[in-house]
């Protein structure tokens, strides 16, 4: 039987893995199985342009998949790759090298790429589903978009990057927006207190309200219509008027389908630095479901939820898998360590926050350029994050594209 690689997961990581397998010489059968009905598309616009852009407000999901910015370029090499969409894998028997789909189809593989990504966490509160949203997929964005009409009271739970992006988008659409965040500032962990509060003030100046140090305890219906969401009740008893609730409270890895194989699935799929899953020669993982060690930051394996990680890990995983499936003696040398430089960005209103490296758990944070005085949006403020006197990360908020790039190069040699 001819050899076959199956990629489970039809988003950015799955597509990039398929491309890299072809680019690196895999000429056998290649199938990508995706749970969504759409070919792989680009998620970052979902919290921004897809919500606010009037030119695309009438487009369907099928049309948006091809819309500039949302469309993902597919390399010519994947023309002969089979994309099996709208199909969820229910279980995997790694020892038999076979998968079972939810609709009962069996898929045999020689090599397996795990690229199932994440799904949004939800608040552990029942009810009012029609006006509660999470944001991960195109369909999620379209459902939310339809409810963000001018004057709508929107409560966003979770003041991370996605929560703040959605808050900015809803505010631009004329909604009354409140962000509920358990920490003392939005984006506190990735940005540190001073920059986080500066960005918070920027949001407040645009009309976004924050309830910090608070969480949601219950939801309440309208007095006139108890079945329809009317208010969000916080842990201190405060009632916030709410027509729409957006839950931006983090994500859980999609790993349930891998249960029963003895894998460590405690936080995504545990991999080594080759992206191999627990020393199996024929199973690799890519993207934000993969927990792997980055020698730049020590030996602790971590999941990374940045846009660049699917492509970075796909390169590594593809070469690893091809080598693992190769019967030729190719002197299984360990290649150079895989140490991708983290890079993330968040566009909120008209400001870009761009980060490189690792900014969390810094023991010292220092302003390297500019400052937090009004004007930082155009001037740019550059913040360095240090751990034991080594700079591990940098964030540039506002400023110019060239200024942001200059600081990436400062970090290239770190680690």
């Amino acid at each position: 039987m001819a050899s076959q690689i199956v990629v489970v997961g039809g988003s950015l990581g799955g597509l990039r893995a398929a491309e890299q397998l072809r680019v690196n010489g895999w000429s056998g059968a290649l199938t990508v199985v995706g749970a969504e009905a759409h070919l792989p598309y680009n998620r970052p616009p979902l919290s921004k342009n897809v919500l606010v852009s009037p030119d695309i407000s009438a487009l369907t999901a099928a049309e948006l998949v091809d819309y500039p910015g949302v469309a993902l370029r597919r390399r010519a090499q994947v023309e002969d790759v089979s994309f099996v969409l709208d199909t969820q894998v229910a279980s995997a028997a790694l020892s038999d090298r076979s998968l079972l789909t939810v609709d009962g189809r069996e898929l045999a593989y020689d090599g397996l790429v795990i690229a199932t990504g994440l799904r949004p966490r939800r608040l552990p509160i029942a009810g009012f589903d029609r006006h509660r949203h999470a944001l991960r997929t195109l369909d999620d964005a379209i459902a939310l978009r339809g409810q963000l009409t001018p004057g709508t009271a929107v409560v966003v739970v979770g003041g991370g990057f996605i929560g703040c992006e959605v808050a900015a988008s809803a505010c631009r659409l004329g909604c009354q927006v409140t962000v509920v965040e358990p920490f003392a500032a939005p984006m506190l962990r990735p940005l540190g207190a001073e920059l986080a509060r500066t960005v918070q003030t920027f949001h407040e100046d645009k009309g976004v309200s924050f309830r910090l140090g608070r969480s949601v305890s219950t939801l309440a219906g309208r007095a006139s219509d108890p079945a329809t969401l009317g208010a969000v009740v916080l842990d201190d008893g405060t009632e916030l008027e709410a027509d729409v609730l957006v839950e931006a409270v983090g994500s859980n890895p999609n790993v349930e389908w891998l249960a029963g194989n003895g894998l460590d699935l405690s936080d995504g799929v545990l991999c080594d630095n080759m992206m191999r899953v627990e020393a199996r020669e024929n199973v690799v993982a890519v993207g934000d479901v993969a927990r792997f060690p980055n020698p730049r930051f020590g030996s602790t394996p971590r999941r990374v939820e940045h846009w660049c990680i699917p492509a970075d890990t796909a390169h590594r995983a593809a070469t690893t898998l091809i080598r693992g499936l190769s019967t030729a003696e190719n002197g299984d040398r360990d290649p150079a360590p895989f140490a991708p430089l983290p890079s993330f960005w968040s566009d909120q209103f008209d400001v870009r926050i761009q980060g490189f490296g690792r900014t969390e758990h810094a023991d010292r944070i220092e302003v390297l350029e500019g400052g937090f005085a009004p004007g930082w949006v155009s001037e740019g403020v550059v913040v360095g994050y240090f751990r034991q006197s080594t700079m591990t990360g940098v964030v540039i908020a506002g400023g110019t594209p060239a200024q942001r790039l200059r600081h990436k190069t400062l970090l290239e040699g770190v680690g």
Partner: protein
Amino acid sequence: MKVTVDTAVCADHGQCIFSAPQVFEFAEDGKLVWEPSPDESLRASVEEAADVCPVQAIRIAD
């Protein structure tokens, strides 16, 4: 090889400049400029640049 960038979509992330510095750069005015017909030897790095563009604005034609 012909390279085009959809400037209506380009958001000045500049990731392409890292992948293919011989082909992409920011001009003095801060706008992205690129070599429309790069040498074939640069194909791998231009493909990489198109992959890592966060708004997928780069097209490559043979």
